[in-house]
């Protein structure tokens, strides 16, 4: 048994070591660039990302442990309706890059922006708005990171037989170190490798399942006989239309405003990279979603007991039990690299964005207001210290997460979308949008969203994101009517097509 346990550990361990080594090499290669401008290299990779890495890091950051564990688990229960709903995510990459990609990149280069909040500061000129945005980013990201760690550590425990803390320590510590030393470029390159690992892991599991169950036809026949509702889009009432509409907003259209995706628009090298990333990203996110969720549907042919109670009463147990049922210990170890890669790629990106918010958007701004500044070496020390301390904080919380973390995590995804959706869209496309409107929209929208989530209040059975986004829009218009119109400098910077070039 111990040898079996060790066999399943090897692939994960080697994969993590490889990521650590790559990050170390990236740090060595970035030495010169970091000496010149540490913040720019560390937080956005010196704007050097090519199309492939840009696409893969965007997809890997977006795909999380729930793509491979929670989602497939529900697909085991619901059937093809869940796959039909999950595929709405194919628009995520081309939407964010097509709408924001070029415009944000142009502005970011004009003002030398390193974070999304730098863009907001230049557009709205409001410290209150930027501090609020930084607080939301750090709070929601931290809760998400804890949840990611917990999900992956539980999966690790179920598949390898090693304890929860062993798994958490293994990939938790390594992701913290490689993020700290590699910075954005290291994160982007390791994300790309993680995205490939996710597809490989799921492909192996897909093949293993078909092999074990006697082929695709046998599984489909089992589903047709024992649970025909799995073959209907509405799954006989389990998948109402309101759920589809909600998901189009929550994991489709509104993901446009997620800061961890937008920051990638600041980091690419040239518009050729942007164009290729749009295609590659759409191919990869679709393949990943289809594979992971289809595996969930087909696991019905492996875990054939119709009652979830037979599998521990939680949909989160479905993927680990399928892996254990289908794969040998070594291949189980290879397969779980996929979900672990999804976790660490999300955590590394959120960790770096959080530390940039703390150091660049809050601390350095506070110094600047007092007429002080940090040297390049000071920025290096503080940025790396913030990343490592925050990372370890998340790690220790994940060992025994308090209930408040789960509450914040429940609000995190929709909360971030609500906070940034109109603020970003109006900021970039409506010259009259002002800081009062943006502040009201961000604060009012998030309060409305979190309150209705906590009290389980829904509008026409739709997810609370509809209320959050709707309230945020109303607050924006009210605040905008009260506030002052942006100055000519802002209008020329963000809307030169209407207010004239500086060169004119």
């Amino acid at each position, binding site marked *: 048994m111990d040898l079996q346990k060790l066999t399943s550990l090897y692939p994960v361990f080697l994969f993590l070591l490889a990521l650590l080594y790559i990050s170390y090499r990236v740090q060595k290669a970035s030495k010169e660039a970091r000496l010149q401008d540490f913040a720019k290299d560390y937080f956005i990779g010196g704007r050097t990302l090519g199309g492939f890495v840009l696409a893969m890091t965007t997809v890997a950051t977006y795909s999380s442990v729930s793509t491979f564990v929670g989602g497939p688990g529900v697909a085991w229960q619901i059937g093809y309706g869940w*796959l039909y709903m999950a595929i709405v995510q194919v628009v995520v990459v081309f939407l964010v890059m097509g709408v924001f990609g070029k415009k944000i990149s142009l502005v970011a280069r004009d003002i030398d922006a390193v974070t999304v909040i730098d863009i907001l500061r230049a557009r709205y000129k409001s410290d209150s708005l930027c501090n609020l945005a930084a607080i939301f980013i750090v709070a929601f990201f931290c809760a998400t990171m804890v949840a990611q760690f917990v999900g992956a550590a539980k999966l690790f425990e179920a598949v390898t037989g090693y304890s929860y803390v062993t798994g958490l320590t293994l990939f938790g510590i390594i992701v913290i170190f490689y993020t700290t030393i590699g910075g954005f470029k290291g994160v982007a390159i390791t994300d790309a490798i993680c995205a490939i690992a996710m597809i490989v892991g799921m492909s192996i599991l897909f093949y293993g399942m078909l092999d074990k169950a006697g082929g695709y036809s046998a599984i489909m026949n089992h589903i047709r006989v024992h649970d025909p509702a799995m073959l209907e889009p509405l799954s006989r009432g389990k998948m109402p239309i309101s759920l589809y509409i909600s998901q189009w907003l929550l994991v489709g259209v509104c993901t446009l405003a997620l800061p961890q995706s937008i920051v990638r628009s600041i980091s690419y090298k040239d518009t050729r990279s942007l164009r290729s990333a749009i295609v590659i990203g759409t191919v990869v996110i679709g393949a990943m979603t289809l594979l992971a969720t289809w595996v969930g549907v087909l696991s019905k042919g492996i875990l054939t007991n119709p009652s979830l109670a037979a599998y521990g009463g939680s949909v989160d147990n479905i993927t680990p039990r399928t892996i254990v049922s289908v794969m040998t210990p070594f291949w189980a170890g290879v397969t779980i690299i996929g979900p672990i890669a999804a976790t660490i790629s999300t955590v590394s990106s959120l960790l770096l964005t959080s530390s940039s918010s703390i150091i660049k958007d809050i601390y350095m701004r506070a110094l600047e207001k007092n007429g002080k500044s940090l040297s390049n070496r000071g920025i290096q020390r503080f940025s790396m210290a913030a990343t490592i301390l925050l990372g370890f904080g998340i790690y220790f919380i994940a060992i025994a997460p308090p209930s408040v973390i789960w509450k914040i995590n429940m609000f995190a995804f929709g909360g971030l979308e609500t906070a940034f959706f109109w603020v970003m869209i109006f900021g970039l496309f409506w010259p009259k949008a002002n800081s009062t409107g943006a502040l009201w929209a961000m604060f009012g929208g998030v309060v409305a969203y979190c309150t209705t989530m906590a009290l389980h209040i829904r509008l026409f059975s739709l997810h609370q994101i509809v209320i959050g986004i709707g309230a945020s829009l109303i607050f924006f218009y009210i605040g905008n009517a009260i506030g002052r119109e942006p100055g000519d400098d802002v209008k020329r910077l963000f809307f030169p097509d209407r207010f004239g070039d500086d060169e004119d």
Partner: protein
Amino acid sequence: MKRSEKFRRANHEAKVTCLATLAVILFWTLAGFGLSAFDISFFDTPLWVLAGCLGTWLFAVCVSFWLAEHVISDVDLAEEDACRMKGGHV
């Protein structure tokens, strides 16, 4: 290229991307819900699953290719960096 022209293009590309997203939503609806009324299967899989899931993915890939090749144009971003170095927009 003048900066105003770059922004004009970026605005146009953003609008077309929104319309492209609507096209994917429309395809997804017709291919999935639309075809679910028919009891047709290929390779042991209902047609609405193949069209609504695999089909939507392939349609989205085609849309993204069209956006990348025919809508989103190349602009020289290095000009913005150079301009900033000279103190143009800061």
